[in-house]
């Protein structure tokens, strides 16, 4: 019924657009990754189409080729996308190479202020250079790495008592990464209802950004820093500090003692599959999957719990994901594209965005008294967003990411060399990149 209604309305709108021949009605193309939240955005955007008379097209590319495809488009000045929900690390390149339209004037003119958004998302998705009020995007989708666990398994009395006998504490949400490893080892190879299960699914993917997005959750919490807080681009002794080495060693140990066999090239999709099929007790993953976990027939409706990345000796941080929405500078429909952003920034649209499964970054939404209890994972999302850290967002971020993927994967998965050697090598690679860039 609803489908038909929508189709009729859709055709009607299209007819209206073509008949009305008014110069204002545009066909906007929005580019994003092909993933669950994208479906929700299509649904949300129907309001915009009805309200503005513009029609929306969508171009979704899978994560593994999202960066290649879209950066190729931007770098060659393509006009495919009018609106781009680009990855957080692209913001530097987008700003410095003039791919994205600077939004400050537009924000001022329309009463949109970045003070209304979660600070971490403003820094992460919108600003360039970081820490300055120059905005090239509006925070669109908040995301952060957190953990999902099998509450139903954790609550089994026989497992609880066995765990307590072995480790001398209750089996529950881990307070530290060290405790998380204990739990993973506890479940590793265990027989549950006749099948062998394993500890945790973690990110190990080699090809794009997987293992980097995973290992940083350990690195940050053991004392890894990208650069000297007082002197930008001063890397040596920070990215390969003693703490950083300990963090990397921790991740390798977790990989060897607490993850399923064959999980050597896993990222978001593989982790979800492993968790949903009952292979693992815990999974590391971006928050975007949580609505899907709740709705899942096997592991949903109360059988799963959520917790933010646990603390390490040097603090508690979590890897930031998520994206901002930008207007592409090569678009000929910039006015209509800005209209979309203006519409998207409205509090009631943002509230609906959250309801459909999109993680709104608007304070008004997440600070609403009912928010934390609106979904089982809402509080974990808030707690996680408060401790985020992101990878480099330099224009050269890809040059920085590739050696990190290689060095870390070679050490953790392929078992080459030592943690110290891996990070020393990484520091050398990074210094070389910054020298090439003229920043050192």
């Amino acid at each position: 019924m609803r489908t038909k209604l929508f189709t009729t309305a859709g055709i009607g709108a299209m007819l209206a657009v073509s008949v009305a021949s008014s110069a204002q009605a545009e066909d906007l193309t929005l580019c994003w990754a092909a993933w669950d939240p994208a479906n929700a955005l299509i649904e949300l955007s129907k309001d915009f189409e009805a309200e503005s008379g513009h029609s929306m097209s969508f171009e979704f590319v899978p994560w593994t080729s999202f960066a290649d495809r879209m950066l190729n488009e931007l770098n060659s000045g393509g006009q495919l996308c009018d609106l781009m929900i680009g990855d957080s690390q692209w913001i530097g390149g987008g700003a410095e190479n003039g791919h994205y339209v600077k939004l400050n004037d537009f924000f001022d003119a329309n009463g949109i202020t970045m003070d209304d958004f979660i600070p971490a998302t403003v820094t992460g998705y919108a600003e360039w250079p970081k820490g300055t009020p120059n905005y090239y995007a509006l925070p669109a989708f908040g995301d952060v790495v957190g953990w999902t666990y099998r509450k139903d398994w954790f609550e089994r009395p026989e497992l609880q008592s066995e765990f307590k006998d072995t480790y001398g504490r209750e089996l529950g949400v881990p307070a530290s990464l060290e405790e998380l490893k204990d739990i993973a080892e506890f479940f590793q190879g265990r027989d549950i209802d006749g099948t062998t299960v394993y500890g945790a699914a973690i990110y190990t993917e080699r090809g794009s950004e997987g293992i980097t997005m995973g290992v940083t959750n350990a690195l940050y919490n053991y004392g890894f820093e990208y650069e000297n807080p007082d002197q930008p681009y001063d890397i040596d002794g920070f990215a390969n500090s003693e703490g950083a080495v300990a963090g990397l060693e921790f991740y390798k140990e977790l990989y060897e003692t607490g993850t399923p066999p064959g999980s050597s090239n896993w990222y978001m999709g593989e982790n979800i599959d492993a968790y949903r099929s009952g292979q693992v007790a815990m999974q590391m993953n971006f928050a975007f999957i949580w609505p899907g976990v709740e709705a899942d027939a096997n592991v949903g409706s109360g059988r799963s719990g959520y917790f933010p990345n646990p603390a390490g000796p040097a603090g508690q941080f979590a890897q930031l994901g998520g994206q901002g929405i930008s207007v592409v500078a090569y678009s000929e429909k910039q006015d209509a594209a800005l209209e979309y952003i203006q519409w998207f920034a409205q509090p009631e649209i943002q509230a609906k965005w959250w309801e459909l499964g999109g993680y709104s970054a608007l304070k008004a939404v997440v600070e609403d008294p009912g928010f934390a209890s609106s979904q089982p994972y809402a509080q974990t999302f808030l707690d996680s967003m408060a401790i985020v850290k992101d990878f480099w967002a330099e224009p050269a971020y890809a040059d920085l990411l590739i050696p990190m993927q290689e060095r870390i994967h070679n050490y953790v998965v392929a078992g080459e060399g030592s943690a110290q050697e891996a990070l020393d090598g990484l520091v050398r690679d990074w210094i070389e990149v910054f020298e090439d860039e003229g920043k050192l």
Partner: protein
Amino acid sequence: MSFSVTEPSARTKWFAGLLVVGYAIVTLIPLLWIIATGFKSPADSIAYPPVVVFEPTLEGYVNLFTDRTRATEGMLEEAGPPTTWYEEIVRERGTVITGPSRYGERFLNSVIIGFGSTALCMLLGTMAAYAFSRFRVPLKDDLLFFILSTRMMPPIAVAIPIFLMFRSLGLNDTHLGMILLYTAVNLSLSVWLLKGFIDEIPIEYEEAALIDGYTRFQAFYKVVLPQAATGIASTAIFCLIFAWNEYAFAVLLTSGNAQTAPPFIPTIIGVAGKDWPAVAAGATIFLVPVMVFTILLRKHLLRGITFGAVRK
């Protein structure tokens, strides 16, 4: 058929048949597994340990052809009870259909580009192969090697110049652009294979035709083409398979308008993570046209070059 000394014995045949059938069955398993996945529920598709016996469902196919979104209570109320069988399947997962997916369009693009480039490639390839086979073309061997060498460049290596060139010509993301591109990539294969086939056709046939007052053109299409039909058919299968399945260029050069199915199929997403049944359903449906094409032309493909019997 009369007894021939070269006819294998019954036992040899039986043994050869056994081995071939054995191999065929082993090689079919992954393929059957893909097809079976298309009829599994999402939970069954990633079951641990894997399941061989399962309750078949069309959910994968429904998901392949529709866009869905997770339903809020308000949306469910507004939509009312499901009226069709596919809406019921979707509703069981707590989602509602928001419209048709783009699989149909992508599939159609594949048909246009795949068959278009195959036809063009056969036309150009047969002409060139005939000329190389029959005429004294200056620098023949070098030209043939040049044609082959165009296949040696990794697509990634020329993708940036092609991308820029196509855009300045307005060929980016168009059917024509992709047809020309795939034709160019396939020409090397078709010229080389077809030349082999035409070489095998005795030149005496054409000479006789020429003496009968045929022109070169007439001799080409009345004598040579029918003789080369087998070669053309099997070469066409190879060209179609390549153009049908090409991925690297398609990812980089096509998007909204002319995107083919191979870059689209792996992007199919479900409620959480990849929707394996829908991906498998997409792959299965996508296999059908090439399969049909091959089965229709299998006589030629398998007979190979039986007229080689007259080879001197």
